[in-house]
C-alpha cells in the first residue's frame, strides 16, 4: 500500500484558490468550512509565497493522539480519517493540530460546535465505500474509485501534489534539480518529521 501524502511546491503556487474551490465542490463542504485553504506568506514583500494547506495526514497524528473518544483511524494508505458518529465535537483535535485542519460546522458556544470536519484525502469515511451515507457525511471517496484528491488533480501549475509520498517526493526532487531552486516541501517536517532530500 502507498503512504499517501500531500506536497506543496510553493515556488509554483499562484494563489488561484482552485484547490479550495475544487474541494468544496467535490465534497459538498458546507458553508463556513474550508477543508483546504491557501495562505500567502510575506504578502506584497520580497519572498512572497503561497501555500495551499489542508490536513496533511500526519505520521503519528496529533489529532488522533488527543481525541478523548478515539474516533480517529488511519487507513491502509496512511490517510488519517475520523468517525463522525463517534466525534463529540470537543475541539481537542483543533487545539493539537499544527495545521488548523479540524473545522466545525458551527462556532457554537455552549459546546455546540457539531461534528468535526476535515480533509479526507478524498477517501470518504468509515461508512461503506461510495455509499450515499458516506458522501453526505464525509464527501467524495475518490481513492475508492482509483483517483487521487481533486485539489491536487486539478491544480493548474501542479504546485499541489497528492499521492504516494515516494512518488511525489521524486517528482519534486527532479523539479528542484532541473530548475535549480526549491523552498522545500511545506509542512513535511511538521507532519512527517522528514523533508525531501534533494
Amino acid at each position: 500500500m502507498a503512504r499517501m501524502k500531500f506536497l506543496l511546491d510553493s515556488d509554483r503556487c499562484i494563489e488561484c484558490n482552485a484547490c479550495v474551490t475544487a474541494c468544496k465542490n467535490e465534497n459538498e463542504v458546507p458553508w463556513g468550512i474550508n477543508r483546504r485553504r491557501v495562505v500567502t506568506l510575506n504578502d506584497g514583500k520580497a519572498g512572497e509565497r503561497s501555500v495551499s494547506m489542508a490536513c496533511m495526514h500526519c505520521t503519528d497524528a496529533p489529532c488522533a493522539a488527543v481525541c478523548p473518544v478515539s474516533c480517529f483511524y488511519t487507513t491502509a494508505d496512511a490517510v488519517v480519517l475520523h468517525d463522525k458518529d463517534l466525534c463529540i465535537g470537543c475541539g481537542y483535535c483543533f487545539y493539537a493540530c499544527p495545521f488548523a485542519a479540524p473545522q466545525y460546522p458551527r462556532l457554537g458556544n455552549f459546546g455546540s460546535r457539531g461534528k468535526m470536519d476535515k480533509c479526507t484525502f478524498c477517501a470518504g469515511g468509515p461508512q461503506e465505500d461510495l455509499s450515499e451515507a458516506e458522501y453526505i457525511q464525509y464527501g467524495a471517496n475518490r481513492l475508492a474509485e482509483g483517483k487521487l484528491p481533486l485539489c491536487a488533480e486539478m491544480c493548474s501549475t501542479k504546485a499541489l501534489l497528492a499521492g504516494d509520498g515516494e512518488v511525489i517526493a521524486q517528482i519534486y526532487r527532479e523539479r528542484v534539480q532541473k530548475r535549480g531552486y526549491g523552498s522545500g516541501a511545506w509542512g513535511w517536517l511538521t507532519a512527517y518529521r522528514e523533508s525531501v532530500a534533494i
Partner: protein
Amino acid sequence: MMIRILALLAILVLGLGAVPAMAQGTTASPSLADERAVQALLRGETVHGRITIPDQRAANLIQPEGRKWREFHNVTLAWVGGIAVLGMLALLSVFFLVRGRIPIEGGRSGRTILRFNAFERANHWMVASCFIVLALSGLNLTFGRHVLLPLMGPEAFTEVSHWGKYAHNFLAFPFTLGLVLMLLIWVKDNIPNGTDIRWLKAGGGLVGHGEPDSGRFNAGQKGIFWITVLGGAAVAVTGYMLIFPFVFTDVTGMQLSHMIHSITAVLLIAVMLAHIYIGTLGMDGAVEAMTTGQVDLNWAKQHHNLWVAEELAKGRAATPPDTAKAAGAD
C-alpha cells in the same frame, strides 16, 4: 608589484570559482524562505499569512504550539491527574486505617445547634452536585478512553461523553453562581486570624490530639474555602474561555486556558476528596452540618468551641431534641 598582481589574480580566480559554488549551495540546501519558516517552527512561532476566504483564523499556516499542548494533555495532565486523584484516595485510605473515625468526645449530648441554615445547605449542595458531575465528565475527557472505552465500546462511550460534555458546559453556570454565593455568605467567617495560627501549630483536630480553639471555621476549613473560591474562579474563568471559542481568545489562548483549567481541576478534585472524606466517613457527627444543619452540641464544642460560645451568648442555638418535653408536661 608582481606579488600584488598575482594576489589579485588569485582573488579573482577564487572569487569567480566561488560564484557557481555559491549558486550550487543555494540549490543544494533549502532556500531562505523555507529555512526561516523552519527556524520559526523550532522557536515555536506560529507561521501566519494572509488569506482570501472569510475565515481569517485560517490565516495561521502552522501552529507548532499544538505539539506542546498534545504533550501536556497526553503526558503531563495524565500523570498529574492520576497521581492527584489516586494518590489522595490512597492517602485517605491509609489515614482511615491509622486514625479511624474521629469520635465525638463524650458521645452525643442529644442537644443540637444550627450550624448551616437552609440557604447555606442548598447552595452547598448545588455547588457540590455540579462539582461531582463536572469532575466526572472532566476526568472522562482525559481518562475515559483508557478506562471506560474498553469496557463500554465506542458507541456507548461516545454517548456518555457527549452528554458529559453538555452537562459539563451547562452546569458550569450554576456552579459559578454557587461559588459567588458561597463567597458572599461565608467570607466573613473565613478571614484568617490568630486562632488559625494556633490551630495549625497544634496540628488541627485531625492530626494532633486535643482539639485546639476554633471559631465557626478552623484553619483547615478556611483553607478548603479559599481553595474552592480561588480554584473555582480559575476553572470558571478558563472554562468560559473554552466554552465560547474565539470570543475571548485565539487557539493559543485556548490551549493555555485548557492547561490552567485541567490542572486546577484535578487538584481541586483531590482536595474535594479529602473534604468529602472528613465530612462523612472520617468524622462522627460532621455530616449533619450539611444534611439537617443541626449538629450535636458536643461535636460543636469539640471542634468549634469559640463559635459555640458565641452562638450561645447570642441566645440562639442549643435546640432541645424533638422528643424533649417541657418540664411538667408529662
